[in-house]
């Protein structure tokens, strides 16, 4: 087994880049939507054979065992080549959770099935009354013989209609002094009578989000991960690396490249006002990337990132939105047109980019929540 961490950063980057460029299917590059598993299965098979499905997992569980610095390079290269993340909820969320808090039996049973995508996972966190205030969740799980019985509703469950299993935060004790207590982490199969999935049509016409209804759905008690009523702490522990990843410059960088080629084709650069706004956006991206490297360097030195990393997400998502708004401006009368717009020999789907940018300031902790975090944890403001 290769210990990737012994390679230099440059060697490792070359290795990863080489593999993606040679093996990643051209038709899947920069997919504008989230694919169902069937659409990307041929790529997953290749990735699995290479042993690269789970870059962050320790090697003993079938991962690549990358340290933070190498992991960052892996993701940078993935985004650079427009490689789809695949159906990675199992890899990103469930696997690390089981590795950290699961029993030996849970590890032996679930981890190989996650790697092979025999099980496809979705994440059941948000509820109609528990979005930014996630700890307010009400979906109940009650012990009944060998099972938990689940009642309630999850929402914004990404790709639940193409998932075999759900990992969820559920309330197992309704009578605790603080609402963060009494929450547990539970795994459940989707294919049963008590689970009903309905897709939500978004502004862009996509159906990647779902509502999931639980009506006396059941899951065996051994599907509890970690201690009963300790789910909140565990969910928070999973977020540490996520926080720099979600603030990576790549979304905005890719959008800027698209904007530039589109605007050039349409002659938008003849307008000095547009030139200035483009320059602003381009410098916003460049200076954000400088800040991102500062955090990435911290990771590379083996330091733990503080709450201040949240500012990367705030800046880059708002910048991403401004860039896609400039695309619409550059499109002029085509600004409301669905589908790719032809400019020379380039196709740019202006509206798809615009819609893609909208929820980035909402998901992963809305930017208002991020501002609350920075205000209290970094600036030390009271209340």
């Amino acid at each position, binding site marked *: 087994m290769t210990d990737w961490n012994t390679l230099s950063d440059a060697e490792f980057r070359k290795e990863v880049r080489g593999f993606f460029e040679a093996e990643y299917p051209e038709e899947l590059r920069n997919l504008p939507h989230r694919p169902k598993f069937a659409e990307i299965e041929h790529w997953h098979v290749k990735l699995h054979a290479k042993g690269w499905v789970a870059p962050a997992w320790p090697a003993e569980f079938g991962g690549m065992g990358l340290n933070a610095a190498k992991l960052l390079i892996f993701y940078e290269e993935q985004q650079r080549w427009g490689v789809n993340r695949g159906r990675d909820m199992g890899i990103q969320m469930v696997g690390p959770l089981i590795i950290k808090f699961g029993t030996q039996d849970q590890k032996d049973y679930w981890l190989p099935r996650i790697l092979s995508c025999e099980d496809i996972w979705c994440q059941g966190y948000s509820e109609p009354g528990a979005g930014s205030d996630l700890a307010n969740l009400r979906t109940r799980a009650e012990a009944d013989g060998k099972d938990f019985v689940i009642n309630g509703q999850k929402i914004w469950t990404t790709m639940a209609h193409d998932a075999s299993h759900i990992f969820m935060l559920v309330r197992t004790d309704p009578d605790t002094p603080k609402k963060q207590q009494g929450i547990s982490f539970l795994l459940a199969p989707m294919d049963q009578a008590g689970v009903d999935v309905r897709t939500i049509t978004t502004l862009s016409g996509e159906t990647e989000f779902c509502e999931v209804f639980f009506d006396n759905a059941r899951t065996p008690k051994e599907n509890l991960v970690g201690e009963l009523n300790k789910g909140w702490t565990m969910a928070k522990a999973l977020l540490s690396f996520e926080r720099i990843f979600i603030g990576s410059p790549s979304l905005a960088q890719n959008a800027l490249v698209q904007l530039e080629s589109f605007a050039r084709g349409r002659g938008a650069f003849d307008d000095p006002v547009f*030139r*200035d706004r*483009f*320059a*602003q956006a*381009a*410098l*916003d991206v*460049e*200076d*954000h990337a*400088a*800040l991102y*490297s*500062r955090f990435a360097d911290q990771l590379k*030195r*083996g*330091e733990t990132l503080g709450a*201040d990393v949240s*500012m990367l997400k*705030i*800046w880059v998502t708002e910048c991403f939105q401004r860039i896609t708004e400039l695309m619409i401006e550059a499109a002029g009368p085509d600004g409301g047109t669905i589908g790719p717009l032809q400019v020379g020999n380039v196709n740019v789907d202006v509206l798809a980019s615009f819609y893609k940018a909208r929820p980035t300031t909402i998901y992963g902790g809305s930017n*208002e929540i991020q*501002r*609350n975090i*920075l*205000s*209290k944890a*970094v*600036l*030390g*403001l*009271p*209340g």
Partner: protein
Amino acid sequence: MTQTDMLSSDQEDLRMLRESARTLFERAGSAGRSRKLRDADGGWDADMIRELAEAGVFGVTVPEDNGGLGMGLAAGGVIAEEVGRVIAPEPVVVTVGLSLGLLRRLCPQHAMMDQIIGGETVLAVAWQERGPNGGPVEASCRYDGGKLTGSKAWVVGAVGADGFLVVADSDAGPVMVLAEAKASGLSFEKTAQADGSAMGELTFSGTPAELLADGTAVQGALAEAISDATALAAAELIGLSDRAFEITLDYIKTREQFDKPIGSFQVIQHRAVDLHVMREVAQAGVREALAQMDSEADPKVRARLASRAKARAVTAAKKITRDAIQLHGAVGYTDEFDIGLYLNRALVLSAWLGDDAYHRRIWFDAREEEGAAQ
């Protein structure tokens, strides 16, 4: 070596430089000292010039062979940031970026180099000229037979300077000459600035001046020195913004209304976070631009990087100092509170050598030119 020891020795040098510059300014009285100087006559403190010289500040980017520290622009930026934090009126950026920027490129052996690095002499640099409509025009100041005729405008550091490095035209092409402040035929008008300083409007009528350099090298060195000074002014604005934000953060934590610190209100908190994020992005962007200038030889690319730095620094400083006044409420509008000094200095530093809109234009054009060349 442990992981946390892995800061490079360069970064470690910069950290030490920052600490010593900060200690020096704090010991002298920080922004309070700057206020006193403003109230006195808007000049600077000769003792401080000597102290800065002893600390090696002026020679920071001058190669060691020419009597400097040879540390590069990133180190100059560290010092400029500290100058900005205490809004010190001493002409550090003018000296490091412009006067020594020109001399070390055009006449590194000249005795004036040592005098400036040693803090015995301060020179201001005059190259721009004002046209009939008040804006900048093509330079027409002449140097003939050892004498200068014409005028120069927007000369920063003119009040208190011992002499002027003047870029002029001659029969032999562009020249850089040195005119003493007390030279005959040199008249001088001050234009008062928002921060209490003054810029000089110089008129030469047969003013004797020493020829230091001529030929096309003069224009090249001038462009390079302007890039350096632009980048350093950006760094000064970064330090200024950093301190203005700290002052504001302290204020909103202590000022109470409705029986609570105003910093406990979410609308204030989110505005404070926006300023903080702007400050961090600006600091990262400007420091990166200066570091890249140190490893870049092409003057055009260096100019683009300087424009990137100044564009960002001005945008950040404008937003931070103006919002700082709003967050202070009515007291922010008084002269008594220091925050206003930061706003006023930001106005002056933003306008000098081009503001953000100007530098975005320059940056964009440079990017287009580089793109076309590839």
